[in-house]
């Protein structure tokens, strides 16, 4: 077994086509990591600058109470970026870099980069996921579409099968040869790019995530190699195998993800904004047209904030508006309910749809690893809501203490997020790729064992 494999590896590495492809793919991989890292840094800095601007304004406010700062001013919190975020820089453009928090309404996401500068949206953003899902399969097809079909077409397949003794061995040997070429093209460049990209992005290197990235790269290369060689074994001519492999790439890497995205959009169209606009207006009226009944209800719920217990008129008014802010929050949350629910359903469906093709499985697994998957939007909104609740408690304590002016900006609550835990998706993806690779190799071997190695009549 090792003889034919070693022979195929040597043959694959010596071919000029392989050398050119290795060089081109390695350059593309490295470029993708560097561009991804630089884009991730831009996102990190944008979030940091937003937070700093907000805290500067809090520090500059001399005569405002904590309630006034939390209600009439924006407190900005940054989403932050996780380790290996450079992998999926493209997705980060559609995620908000920061959120605006006011205690009387759910956190509002600031416009994402894609909204502020959509010019680059038209062109996309190069990152490692882009190279692995769109360009690497094309490279594999270019290298291996004639791995077996060419021998069949020129009549040398029978000669190759004699020393191999079992037809499956030829398929395995050719698969390993192509796999090694793809591995050399991508893995060293991706690992070097991971260090450089993480450094550029300003995030640390997480060895565990790096190991998972390597596992995904290796299994993805294995799947591509076995699929291309399998297709080559299944067809009679190089032109047929090229057409089949290219068609498969177009279908699995481009058409199905695009179609799924459009189907998801049609299934969950944006909700009608009019009820939300009306709801926000109703929420705004809580402050614009204060109602005594609302205050009475809130005092019954939490008597500590009764305005009558305040030290003076100013602090009494603060308690009054603090109680109103709770009702306003409930109304604002209700106004956004339909949009939030549609977003949650949309994200759930997108996550399910990402399981449809191997490239979208890889894309979803790497996005998870980078902390930029579809659920990141919801996860950040939940974290921001937890911060808002904490800010409300912080302000509530100062309102109860009848503090007229907030003076120490350093104690204003800060927002910290730890990188999300890695889910099961990358491990499941790697396992799926291995199983699919075995399936492709088996199908190719079966075709060689059952079919005739002779060329077609026309080729003869």
């Amino acid at each position: 077994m090792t003889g034919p494999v070693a022979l195929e590896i040597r043959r694959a590495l010596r071919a000029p086509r392989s050398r050119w492809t290795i060089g081109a793919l390695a350059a593309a991989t490295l470029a993708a990591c560097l561009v991804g890292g630089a884009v991730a840094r831009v996102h990190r800095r944008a979030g940091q600058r937003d937070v700093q601007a907000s805290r500067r304004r809090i520090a500059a406010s001399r005569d405002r109470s904590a309630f006034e700062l939390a209600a009439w001013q924006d407190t900005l919190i940054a989403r932050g970026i996780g380790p290996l975020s450079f992998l999926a820089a493209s997705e980060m453009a559609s995620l908000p870099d920061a959120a605006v928090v006011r205690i009387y309404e759910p956190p509002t996401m600031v416009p994402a980069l894609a909204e502020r500068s959509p010019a680059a949206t038209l062109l996309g953003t190069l990152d490692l996921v882009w190279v692995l899902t769109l360009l690497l399969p094309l490279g594999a097809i270019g290298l291996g579409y004639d791995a077996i079909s060419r021998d069949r077409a020129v009549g040398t397949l029978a000669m190759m099968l004699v020393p191999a003794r079992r037809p499956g061995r030829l398929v395995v040997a050719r698969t390993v040869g192509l796999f090694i070429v793809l591995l050399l093209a991508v893995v060293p460049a991706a690992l070097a790019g991971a260090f450089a990209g993480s450094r550029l992005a300003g995030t640390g290197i997480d060895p565990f995530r790096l190991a998972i990235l390597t596992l995904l790269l290796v299994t993805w290369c294995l799947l591509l190699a076995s699929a291309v060689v399998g297709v080559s074994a299944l067809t009679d001519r190089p032109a047929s195998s090229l057409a089949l492999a290219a068609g498969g790439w177009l279908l699995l890497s481009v058409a199905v993800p695009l179609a799924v995205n459009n189907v998801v959009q049609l299934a969950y169209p944006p909700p009608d904004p009019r009820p939300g606009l009306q709801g926000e207006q109703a929420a705004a009226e809580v402050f614009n047209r204060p109602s005594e009944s609302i205050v009475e209800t809130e005092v019954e719920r939490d008597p500590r904030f009764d305005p009558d217990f305040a030290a003076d008129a100013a602090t009494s008014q603060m308690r009054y508006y603090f109680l109103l802010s709770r009702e306003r929050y409930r109304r604002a949350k209700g106004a956004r309910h339909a949009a939030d629910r549609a977003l949650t359903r949309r994200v759930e469906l997108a996550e399910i749809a990402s399981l449809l093709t191997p490239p979208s499985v890889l894309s979803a697994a790497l996005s998870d690893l980078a902390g930029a998957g579809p659920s990141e939007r919801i996860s950040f909104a939940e974290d921001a809501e937890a911060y808002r609740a904490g800010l409300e408690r912080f302000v509530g304590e100062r309102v109860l203490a009848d503090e007229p002016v907030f003076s120490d900006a350093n104690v204003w609550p800060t927002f910290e997020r730890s990188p999300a835990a890695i889910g099961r998706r990358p491990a499941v993806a790697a396992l799926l790729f291995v199983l699919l690779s075995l399936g492709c190799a088996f199908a190719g071997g079966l075709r060689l064992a059952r079919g005739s190695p002779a060329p077609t009549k026309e080729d003869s």
Partner: protein
Amino acid sequence: MVPFLLVAPRVGPVLRALLLKELRLAVRSRRVWWVALVMAFLGAIASVAGGVRHASERALHEKLTEYGARSFGQQRPDHPHSIAHNGYVVSRPPAPLGFLDAGVQPAYGRWLRLDAHQTRPLAGARTVDLARGPGAGRFDLGLLLAVFAPLMVVLLGHDQIARERTRGTWAMMRSAGLRAGPLTASKVAGLFARVALAVLLPALVCVVLLVADFRSFELRPVLWFGGHVLAMFVWCVVVLLLSALAPTEQAALLFGVALWATLALFVPPLAGGLARAVAPVPPPGEAMVAAAAWADSAHAQTEKLRVAALEDIRRRHPEWDGTGDAPEVVDAVMLRLADAKASSKMLDLLERMDREADRQERLAASFATFSPTGLASLLSSGLAGSDLPHLRASFRHFERYRVELMAWFNEWWAEQGSGGFDAYDQTRFDDFDDVPRPPPFWVPLAFAVRRAALPAGLLALAGGLVAAALGWVIRRRLG
């Protein structure tokens, strides 16, 4: 160039014969009809996807416009200043040819409630719908023609010259004394005829159906389709050049696919990524904090502002000697002056942010000029009215209206009001018949043509250069 050569006395007959031969082969080619079938299928999907989205956007725009007018006119009695804060719900209409090319529309907001003192961003951008891949997840005719149709050109034309050499017919042409000019022109015309049959004709049918459905009978769709025809021509000469340079048909196909992957799938995202990394746009939160600080200053009643307001009233009412009640509400004049200052600052900030975004866009566009696909995307969205400058123009349109509305309210209050919010508890807003309403947003075709001129010029230049290179290579091959 080809029409002139066709009637030229010396080369005309040979060229016409070669062209007829190429056309005959094109019509008989099974590959052409297969590609036409695939293109028709994809074109139908793209038309439905683009048409459905555009129709829903248009319906939403109409609903919101009606809602904005109704909710503004039916507000509860309130002080004019509060009403100015509540503002007007305005909606951006979809791009004129958004059903053909949605451009960057999915990433741009659609509506907003204008606030008197604050510039608010448009809301309703569907960034959650943006997906990885060309076009960020949308699938319409613009994307199909700019990104995927070139692959069909590669499939149709990779062997046009390479096959002549592998089958030995090239040597026959050389021995027949065929000249490079007519041969180049016939090859280009032959491949373009195939592309016209297999790619452009199905796309044209889809465009005509969509234009008829949305009743967009104007020059714009003609120019839009013409732009894509130009891009297809460039791809034709590029593919023929590859076919002339490649040693075999198989190599020509591999080179063609690799070139397409590089120009359509690698260069544009590289350009987009580099532009984002090298020319980042300012953070939005920073601008929001600045805008909020200026908006607060509009309510700050400082002594300095009061003095300025009194001077303004004296200037406008020279008969008032400064004693007794002022002819205008001083608070309202103070607000007007502060608003004007805040608006001026805000406009400066917007100008600066737009300049940064323009810088990023220019950088992305300059990188994209290396790819016919990038140029075709810019040209297509520019003519469709769905590129960034068109959408930004819509936002500016609403911002101008916001300033006008705010000024009107402040003016009214200053001249007719008596101060004090309680006085307006029973005054219905319907009384303000003269209040300015948002004029409909419309951008002339000339704006779109100016936007598309540069990519179109670069495409024409690239086509000319590659055609000259093709002629030179064919001359060398003919010896």
